[in-house]
């Protein structure tokens, strides 16, 4: 074994046991004792963790029963006044909102068939009910898509109680239906609030997710492959402690700071969808709020 020069790399020679043979074999420890001690501590720790995990009762599971969203709340979320979109634009001083990302090379518009087999530009969402970032992003996505069509069967949901920003109030797309003349919507909630598998992406959905979201992060949204969103556009911190009713009830107030964040995000999403629909319908895609988003996105 190579060694460093004794004079330069050694600790003081006076400390070396070789210089103090009288002590040898008395109070000194065998070589390797400390190594085995460290390994033993780790082995014991692993054993303790396994035993505790095996013997402790699992935490109370959150209910996964489907509860339809309140019609009042759904109406407020899906009927945000046009004046609010236009007043807010993409200005949200209290809730920073990021823009969707644009692919490096231009992409053909993603078109998948709806339930009746009709091809249209398609928005694809993949997320999970436990995920607080998905919880935040669903608000703005529902608001944006509601400008192109109609949602039904949205369910109540809250993010995991053991995750970041626990119990963030939101909706689930688990049983949602969406009808539009301009755009199709495809969604996957891959796990429930307790991390149990829920919906499995089909081959096309899996391929799209794998192609554009190589880190496997959720939420993932493809706006017809013209723009993408990986992660939420604003922090779920902004929704902390608020009920669905409180959040939805403020969506008609353009001066509300949270509304400004959610609506800014919705305007970005709307602009991205307009890019896929060929700027249809005009009353949405040419509105001042969406134009502001387009301008910020370089469209």
């Amino acid at each position, binding site marked *: 074994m*190579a060694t460093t020069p004794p004079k330069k790399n050694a600790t003081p020679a006076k400390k070396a046991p070789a210089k103090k043979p009288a002590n040898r074999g008395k109070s000194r420890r065998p070589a390797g004792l400390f*190594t085995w001690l460290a390994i033993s501590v780790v082995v014991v720790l692993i054993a303790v963790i396994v035993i505790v995990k095996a013997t402790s009762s699992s935490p109370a599971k959150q209910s996964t029963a489907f509860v339809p969203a309140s019609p009042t709340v759904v109406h407020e979320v899906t009927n945000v006044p046009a004046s609010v979109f236009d007043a807010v634009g993409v200005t949200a001083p209290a809730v920073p909102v990021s823009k969707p990302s644009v692919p490096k090379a231009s992409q053909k518009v993603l078109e998948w068939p709806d339930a009746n087999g009709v091809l249209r530009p398609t928005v694809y969402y993949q997320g*999970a009910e436990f995920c607080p970032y998905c919880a935040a992003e669903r608000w703005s996505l529902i608001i944006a898509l509601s400008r192109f069509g109609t949602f039904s069967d949205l369910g109540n949901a809250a993010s995991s109680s053991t*995750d970041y920003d626990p119990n963030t109030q939101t909706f689930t797309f688990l049983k949602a239906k969406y009808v539009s003349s301009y755009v199709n919507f495809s969604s996957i909630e891959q796990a429930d609030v307790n991390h149990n598998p829920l919906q499995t992406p089909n081959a096309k959905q899996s391929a799209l997710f794998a192609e554009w979201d190589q880190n*496997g992060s959720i939420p993932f949204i493809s706006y017809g492959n013209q723009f993408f969103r990986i*992660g939420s556009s604003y922090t779920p911190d902004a929704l902390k402690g608020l009920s669905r009713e409180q959040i939805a009830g403020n969506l008609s107030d353009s001066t509300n700071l949270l509304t400004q964040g959610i609506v800014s995000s919705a305007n970005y999403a709307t602009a991205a969808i307009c890019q896929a629909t060929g700027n249809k319908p005009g009353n949405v895609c040419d509105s001042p709020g969406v134009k502001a988003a387009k301008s910020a996105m370089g469209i």
Partner: protein
Amino acid sequence: MTELNLVPRWAVAATFVLSLAGLAISAYMTYAHFAGTSVLACPDTGVVNCALVTTSAQSKLLGIPVAMLGLGQYLVMTALNSPWGWKRPERWVAIGRFALAGVGFAMVLWLIIAEFLIIKHICLWCTAVHVVTFALLLVLTRVSPDQLGWTSSPE
């Protein structure tokens, strides 16, 4: 080793490389801590969740972010485990090196308990630091006790 007061080159190289790795990872984690969660996303695997771990109550000790404590520790360890650090003849340098590795290991044990039993999620960056810290301790247990004269010499 044939003489207990010698430190093998492999140990000098290993401890320096491990210290640099620990320094790099803890520097990134400190940056991420103060920059906030840069990507507002969940991993699609449930157990791994860095944001949850690094924002938990256990992510601070006496009000100081654990990531910063790790950065401070690895700054010192990198100096002590550099080729220049190993050349220092003072006994306190050798004791400090071994003691700091032990303190780091104890901290890692606590953080592993916190991740698995309290937070119930793990952070892969944290795990990387844990592995580096344990590896560093293992290397030092092979050389520091001999260097300090705490073991019996070979017959």
